[in-house]
């Protein structure tokens, strides 16, 4: 054990053009013992090719069941600074907008009470404050709430919702992602902080089918903006693109999954059969000055995405084909979620069964019935191809 403080392996990762996390840990380690501890334990992990963290126990702030991930070093004698190394998940502002001011306040607080290390942001969307001791948790929480921040979710609760930048900066937002995200987050504060579900429940909001927040892949309830009427089209701008050398035929028309576009090169005229348009965004993406989503906008609401544990990964699938969320508001939705989905899932879901797995187990048809939604062919990519239909007894009586 030559130089206890040497980190020859991690030092290798200070080299190279991309910003280095090792530089960050060292920066924090200058004034912060916990950061130094994590640096040295990590160097040992690099040497031994294995992690040295123990399964976290239940730690948290008073009255909350989530928001803190407990973490303990497996080698507390060697790295006493990180004997405790819990993280706090701090609910980010919708769209991840900050001011210089508020960031500095958080930094000051975290230097005082934690490791000085953060994740900006965690994969769910939270600001992750990386590493502190159990006895600091209440102080951190107190200072956060004073600044107007609160903790996000962890465990079997509503997880911190997140959204794309949406109408704040994007010309394609088909609904107000930030407002919806904020309002749903506020409405479900209790569900976010006090786990009462079979498993986690995530919300994500993307303003259009580009899905810049990966909602369809990683949220139990995914909101994706769309429209019903015709794409707004500016023929002059299309000509400009064509004149500037864009190959409308091969770049736009041939990539259209709806196969609903034709290009007349002689007249530089693009024609869209909007009744076949799948609202995929491709043509709009390529011709942002010429094409825009229609005016009759809303969301498609999809249900059930999750990572592979246990039954294999799922993508969300259509639950509500179209909802004019900005005009019709959230009340009906709250009702559907609370009195419908959560009620049924909480009542009948197995422990650690995400809502997507639950639906597959009980059957989408039964699930829809239990939450009071009509089956709609937009919910499926195709009808069943196996003949194993469970017929209701009632229906039979009628038919017989």
């Amino acid at each position, binding site marked *: 054990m030559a130089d206890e403080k040497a980190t020859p392996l991690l030092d290798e990762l200070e080299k*190279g053009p991309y910003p*280095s996390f090792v530089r*960050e840990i060292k920066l924090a380690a200058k004034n912060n013992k916990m950061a130094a501890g994590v640096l040295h334990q990590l160097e040992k992990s690099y040497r031994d090719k294995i992690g040295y963290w123990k*399964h976290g126990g239940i730690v948290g702030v008073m009255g909350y069941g989530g928001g803190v991930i407990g973490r303990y070093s497996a080698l507390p004698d060697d790295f006493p600074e990180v004997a405790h190394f819990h993280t706090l998940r701090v609910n980010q*502002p919708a769209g991840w*907008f*900050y001011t210089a001011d508020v960031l500095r306040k958080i930094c000051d607080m975290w230097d005082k009470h934690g490791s000085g290390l953060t994740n900006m942001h965690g994969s769910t969307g939270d600001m992750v404050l990386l590493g502190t001791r159990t006895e600091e948790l209440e102080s951190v929480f107190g200072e956060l709430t004073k600044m107007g*921040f*609160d903790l996000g979710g962890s465990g079997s609760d509503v997880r911190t919702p997140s959204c794309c930048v949406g109408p704040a900066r994007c010309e394609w937002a088909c609904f107000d992602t930030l407002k919806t995200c904020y309002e749903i987050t506020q409405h479900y504060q209790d569900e976010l902080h006090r786990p009462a579900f079979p498993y986690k429940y995530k919300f994500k909001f993307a303003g259009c089918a580009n899905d810049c927040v990966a909602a369809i892949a990683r949220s139990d309830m995914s909101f994706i903006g769309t429209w019903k009427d015709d794409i707004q089209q500016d023929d002059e701008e299309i000509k400009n693109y064509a004149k500037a050398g864009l190959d409308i035929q091969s770049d736009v028309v041939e990539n259209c999954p709806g196969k609903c576009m034709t290009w007349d090169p002689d007249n530089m005229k693009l024609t869209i059969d909007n009744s076949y348009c799948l609202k995929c965004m491709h043509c709009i993406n390529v011709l942002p000055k010429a094409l825009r989503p229609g005016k009759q906008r809303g969301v498609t609401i999809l249900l059930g995405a999750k990572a592979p544990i246990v039954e294999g990964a799922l993508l969300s699938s259509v639950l509500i084909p179209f909802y004019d969320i900005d005009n019709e508001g959230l009340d009906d939705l709250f009702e559907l979620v609370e009195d419908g989905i959560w009620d049924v899932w909480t009542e009948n879901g197995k422990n650690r069964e995400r809502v997507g797995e639950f639906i597959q187990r009980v059957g989408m048809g039964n699930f829809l019935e239990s939450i009071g939604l009509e089956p709609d062919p937009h919910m499926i990519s195709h009808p069943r191809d196996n003949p194993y239909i469970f017929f209701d007894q009632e229906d039979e009586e009628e038919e017989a």
Partner: protein
Amino acid sequence: MTERLTDIGPPHYEKFLPPVVKENYGKWKYHEILKPGVMVHVSESGAKLFTVRMASPRLLATDTIRWIADLAEKYCGGYLRWTSRNNVEFLLTDESNIDPLIGEIKKNGFIIGGMGNSISNIVHTQGWVHCHSSATDASGIVKAVMDDLSQHFENMDLPGKLRIALACCLNMCGAVHCSDIAILGTHQRPPRIEHDTLDKFCEIPNVVSACPTAAIRPATVDGKPSVEVLEENCMYCGNCYTVCPSMPLNNAETDGISIWVGGKVSDARSIPKFSKLAIPFIPNNPPRWPEVVEAVHNIVDVWAKNAKKYERMGDWIERIGWPEFFRLTGIEFTKYHIDDFKHAGLSFKRTAQMRHLPEE
């Protein structure tokens, strides 16, 4: 003493929106990428918002955040945001501030880019920095891979967007299962059972029912209630460890990485799809995981050379066919590539439509 606040939720986002955003909220008309890492959004009112996107290692020290705040104050009226892939976006209204800002960013060793048809930041997880479950580190591999690919972050020289993600275990925090390239920490051994503590830390019925393959059975070991694992049924998913700390899976000898390709999230052109197995296993080789870097580099190169404009990795592979993908990349096709989980049969080729590869 003041009242203890709870359930206040996050601050309202409006507090943090720059004035130009508030004024033009929902009124943006179009955008243009001006150069790598710099774009402008133009409002119906004619107002312009310039965005400069800076790479971030995600794991940030408070001092770096303060430096970022300082830059925002100096050039952006104090306003900035993070993106859904953990990059920093400086929000400017004064076009002349762009180059000085970029100058300061580069001086401090950060880079800008990640826009348009480029590689953006690698979405990733905790690894050996914080998680107990990890089969590999996260940040280290991300750094090594991005060092190698940074020219594709700083330039828009690819056929389409390329999204890489990394998760350090099969729990797959992040959306790695739908990435153009997914780097996945992978165990290769069943859990070690710590019979001494198991009864104390874990509820045996929970443990037994947690196993998707029914590989776990209650057992009495040295007189203590514990469990045993039918090793040939174990697929190293780690679900038992999640519910029971006495069944760790990590193993310095046999942990490593698998590589997955061709997933996507957007609905643009083709519908979202899962990533598929490319390389079943690469051993951990810190600090710079050269085999992983090389493997990702190769896949990116072959795709960049062969794909058509706008063609995401998965769409390209679907066009050329998987046999051609394996041929072009030189990756070996093994029995591990053939699915044997729930929907396996649906991934078998149930058609006689076939391209025969050139004989080599």
